[in-house]
Every structure is written in C-alpha cells, then in structure tokens.
C-alpha cells in the first residue's frame, strides 16, 4: 500500500508535466505538421530519454558533493576537460570504450586534484573549487592545441554512448556508482554523518580527509560518464571565465527538484524522475519554438524559485507534523 502511494507520488511530477505540455502544445497550431501533433512522436521519447540520461549523470555528480555539504563549482570544468581529452583519445584510437575509460581516468584524477587542493589547502570549498575551475578551464586551451573535440560525436562508430541504447551503459554505471557509494560504503555513511555534524563526526573518529577523498573518487567516476556522454553528443570547445559553471547550472534544476521529489522515495529516484520531467518540459517548449532563448530561461528561473519556495514551506509543514506526533507520544 505504502509502496504504491510512494510510487504514485513520485510519478506525479513527470505525469503532470506531460499532461500540461500535452495540453499546451495541443492547443498551439505551431505544433501540428500536416494535421498530427509532433509532441506525440517517437522522436519525443528518444529525445527525452537521451537528454535525461545526460542530465542525470551531471545532476548526480553535483548532488553527491552537495549532500555531503560541499558545492563543487568545478564539476562542469572537470567534465569539459575530461570530455576533450577522452574525445581526442577516442578519435586517435577509434575506440569508444577506450574513450570512456580515459574519461573516467582523467575525471577521477581531476576530482582528486580538487579534493587535494581542498584538503591540503584548507581553503573554503567554494573558493578552492572556483580555483580548480579556473585551472581546468585554462587547461582546455592547452591540451590538443586548444582545438577541443569536433569530429567525435559525428563518427557513428565512436559516439555509441551518446545515442540509444548505448547511452544507458554510462548512465547506469553513474547511477550504480552513486547508489553504491551513498548507501553501501562505509565512507558514504560516514559522509552523511560529517555533513550533518562535521565536528562531532571528526571527534568520534571519522577521518575527514579520507572521506572527502573517497567521495571525490566516486564523483569523478560519475563525471567521467557525464563527460563521455557529453562528448558523444556535442562538439566540445575550450571554455573560459567560469563559463563551465554555466554548463553545470543548466543541469542543476533537476538536483533541486530531485531533492524535493525524492522526499516521496529516495534522492536517486527523485533526480532521475526530475530529469525526465524537465526534459519533457524542454521538448514541449521546443515544439512551441521556445526551446532556446529568453522564455525558456525565464521558465527555468520560475521553476528554481517555485520549487525551492515550496520545499522550504514543506520543511515547516513536516516540522509541524513531527511536533504533533511527539505531543501525542507524550500524552
């Protein structure tokens, strides 16, 4: 019974999103080509799935650090740099698998660098990750002559991880990595404790440094997956001026919403569901020719604000319920 309720609650969001977008698109003649509604075409399913996979990977990477109390600014830069290196390796060797492995290796290495800078530099996380971001971005101009990667995604043999069904492999690895770390490893558990009371955690003997190291290794793995998907779908050009944070922010909305939707189940599911929902929204907007440009941005903004506001209030509601429960218990 409870399970069913939870599942329903969880699926509510994308279902709602679908219904709304369907209604809107159906009522706009922009979305009809010779009489049939393009919103309801196979293309939609494919696009939503493909984009959702990408979003999930990045969102999980961000969330993994965020739930441990660290906002990692460098995730985007890490992904782009890994993507460029992996892409070029892939192009030279002609092997997508090798590209994937490279992506993971590089991105883990970069994550470890970020972690090391944080641990040994003892600089507040935001500042140190901004430093890392600037460094990684600058490296994108130095590797492979600053040419980025162009031909990777367009070489069918290489870009298997950017299309259905190949894209599911990296995505599943990413999700698995997240779940294993957070729910099954000792370090994941310790991370939860540290994030809730850093000092106490350290006092009762958790090695903070090792813990951060571990969490960043897993973040690296997930980002590696994101990188290989990214390079399998886009031309990747060098970035500068923290523009990678923009790339990262474009995937962050599902994180916020995931936290909220996850309340009904667990955060991973929440994020996946949120990603799917968001992509349905995006696809709908594309049908209305609002995909790129101002309107979409504004809608995004409203989403961020709305969801945060709502979950903020939700916190109070839960607290109230808890208090009432306690009182009943006391009585």
């Amino acid at each position, binding site marked *: 019974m409870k399970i069913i309720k939870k599942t329903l609650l969880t699926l509510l969001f994308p279902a709602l999103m679908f219904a709304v977008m369907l209604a809107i698109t159906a009522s706009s003649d922009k979305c009809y080509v010779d009489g049939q509604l393009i919103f309801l075409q196979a293309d939609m399913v494919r696009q939503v799935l493909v984009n959702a996979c990408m979003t999930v990977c990045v969102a999980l990477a961000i969330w993994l650090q965020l739930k441990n*109390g*660290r906002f990692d600014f460098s995730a985007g830069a890490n992904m782009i740099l890994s993507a460029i290196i992996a892409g070029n390796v892939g192009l030279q060797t002609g092997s997508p698998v090798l590209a994937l492995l490279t992506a993971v290796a590089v991105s883990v290495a970069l994550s470890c660098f970020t972690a090391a*800078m*944080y*641990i040994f*530099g*003892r*600089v*507040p*996380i*935001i*500042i*140190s990750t*901004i*430093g890392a971001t*600037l*460094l990684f*971005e*600058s*490296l994108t*101009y*130095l590797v492979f002559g*600053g040419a980025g990667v162009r031909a990777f995604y367009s070489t069918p043999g290489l870009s298997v991880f950017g299309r259905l069904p190949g894209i599911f492999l990296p995505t599943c690895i990413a999700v698995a990595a997240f779940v294993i770390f957070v729910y099954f490893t000792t370090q994941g558990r310790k991370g939860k404790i540290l994030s809730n009371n*850093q*000092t106490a955690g*350290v006092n009762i003997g958790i090695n*903070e*440094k090792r813990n*951060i190291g571990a969490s960043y290794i897993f973040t690296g793995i997930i980002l590696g997956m994101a990188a290989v998907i990214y390079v399998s779908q886009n031309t990747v050009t060098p970035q*500068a*001026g*923290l523009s990678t*944070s923009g790339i990262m*922010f474009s995937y962050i909305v599902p994180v916020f919403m995931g936290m909220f939707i996850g309340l009904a189940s667990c955060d991973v599911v929440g994020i996946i569901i949120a990603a799917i929902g968001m992509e349905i929204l995006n696809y709908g907007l594309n049908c209305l020719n609002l995909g790129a*440009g*101002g*309107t*979409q*941005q*504004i809608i*995004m*903004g*409203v989403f*961020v*604000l709305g969801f*945060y*506001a709502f979950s*903020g*209030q939700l*916190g*109070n509601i839960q607290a109230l319920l808890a208090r009432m429960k306690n009182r009943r218990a006391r009585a």
Partner: protein
Amino acid sequence: MTTKTNPAEKRSSFPAFLGRHVYDIAAYAGLAATLILFLIFGGSRLAYNAQAVLQTSAPTIIIALGAVFVYSMGYMDVSVGQQVGVYAILMIMIINAVGGALGVVLGFLAVLALALLCGAFNGAVAVWLKLPSIVTSLFLMFFFTGAQFLLMESTGTNSISVPTSLLRPADRGAYNLLLVVIIVAVALAVTYFFRFSKLGKYTRGIGANETATAQSGVATTRWKVIAYMAFGACVALGTYVMLMRTGSAGKGTGTGYAMDIMICLILGGMPLSGGMKSKVSSALVGTLTYVLLTNDLTTMGVDLNMINFVKALIFIVIILITCRRRGGVLPR
C-alpha cells in the same frame, strides 16, 4: 570560519603582526606585483595604458564596492552580470526614445529604480520564502538572461547604441577625471556606511552570527533589504559608467560580471563567509589586481592560450595564502 585570534597575536610583536595581517599583506603584495609588471611592460604607452586600466576597472570597482555589503553578510549575487546587461539595454532604449540629456536622466533613474527593486527582491523574498539567498539570485539570473534575450530580439539587432557624447565629456582628460571622481566618491560613501554607520556594522553582524545580531535588536530582514538595495544602486551606477565607454549594449553585455566580482573580492581578501573581517579595501585592491593582471599579460605578449592558465595559477596561489584556515575541521 574565521581563524581564532589567540591572545598571542594581541602582543604587537612583528611576527604576530604578520600573522594577523597575512590576508591584507598577500592581497597588497599581489597588487604591487601586477603594478610593477605594469610599469615595466607598459612601456611607451604608459599614460594610455593607465587610462585604459582606469576605464576597464571603473564599472567593476563600483559594482564590487556595492557588493561588499552583500558579501559581508556571507551572501553572493550571481545575477549581477545579466542585471547590468538588461539595465544597459533599457537605458539606451529610454535615451533613444526620449532623447537628449533628459533621456539620460530618465534612463538612469528608471534603471536605478529597477535596480533598487531587484535589491529589495533579493533581500526580502529570500527571507519571506525562507530561501537561501543564492536561490533568489539564481532566479534573477535566469530571469534577466531571458529578459536580455527577449529585449534584444525585439530590437532585431545584436547591438543598440547611443552617441557617447550624450553620456560623457568628449575630452578624454575630462572623462578620465570624471571616472576618478565617481570611483573616489563611491569608495568614500561605501567606506563611510560600511565602517561608521549601522548598515555596515549590521551586515557584518549578520554575516558573523545572524541569530545573535537579531537578538541584539537588529531588524535583520530590513537591513538585508537595505544592503541589497545599496548594492543595487552601485550596480545601476556601474552600468552607467560601463555605458560611458561604449555607448552600446547587446545580448552579451555584462556577461561574467558576477564571477569577475567574486574573483576580485577574493583576490582582495574578502572572506566569502562574510563577518567582521570583511573590508571595503578588498573591492579596490582585488579589482585593480585583476584588471592590471589582464593588461600585463597582453602587454607581455603572453600567448592567448596561456593567459587563462597563468591567471588560474596566480588566483590559486593567492587564495592558498589569503583564505587558508588553520586548525579545526575543514572549512565548508
């Protein structure tokens, strides 16, 4: 967040002094270094370079000065860039519509009003809806990005402009002087309100411990709003100063200001957590360091692809010195 000043440092021995002022020393050292490089490589066109630096840094300095209030509360605003963009576009539109000096005045006032409104929004809504302030500013970022895009779409071009003669004295000397005057004026004003009035003392208090500040009788919400509005005013002014330069604006106008300001303040030794250690000088020192650095690297003829790398390294070195937290758990 901030390191314990233990009694040892109270005895004014020289090493203790160093220990206490390591932030400032490092920050000023950075500035000195870039300045020396500037003098060396500025070469024949030193005078020209000086005014180039002045013009480039002016808007950033002004906005950064305003940002000091926000950062001292431990908050940051990621929407500045897009705000600047939209304000610039609006100002030009209004000037073109109304025309003449009147247009300039109206344009500025309109933008100022809007900026203050956004400030109020940033401050108040975050409190009312119990949101982390970063979220409201994220929202504003998305919103203004969209607005800027739509506004430019409506014009059907990627750049609209007004003759700069409307905005500033045609004579370079006068123009530069005007810039200096504005910067000094803003710097003095901000220093006054930050050091010698309730505003600064309260914002720092909020940054250091909001509850305790509130229980000392500070209407935190109101002062947050005021702080953000002060920031807004500086953004509006900064936008105008930026416009003085080019007289034109487009889709990308203002891009990167938010991040630049953050980097500048960090370079200037501002603790992102806010609190009592926040200081106005960080805006001036940081921005000048940053702008001079860029100028140096070009005049030194550093390869285009290397410039960012060098900048990154310098940034990392400086933060490792200025932002290092000794002892205790790792800073969040």
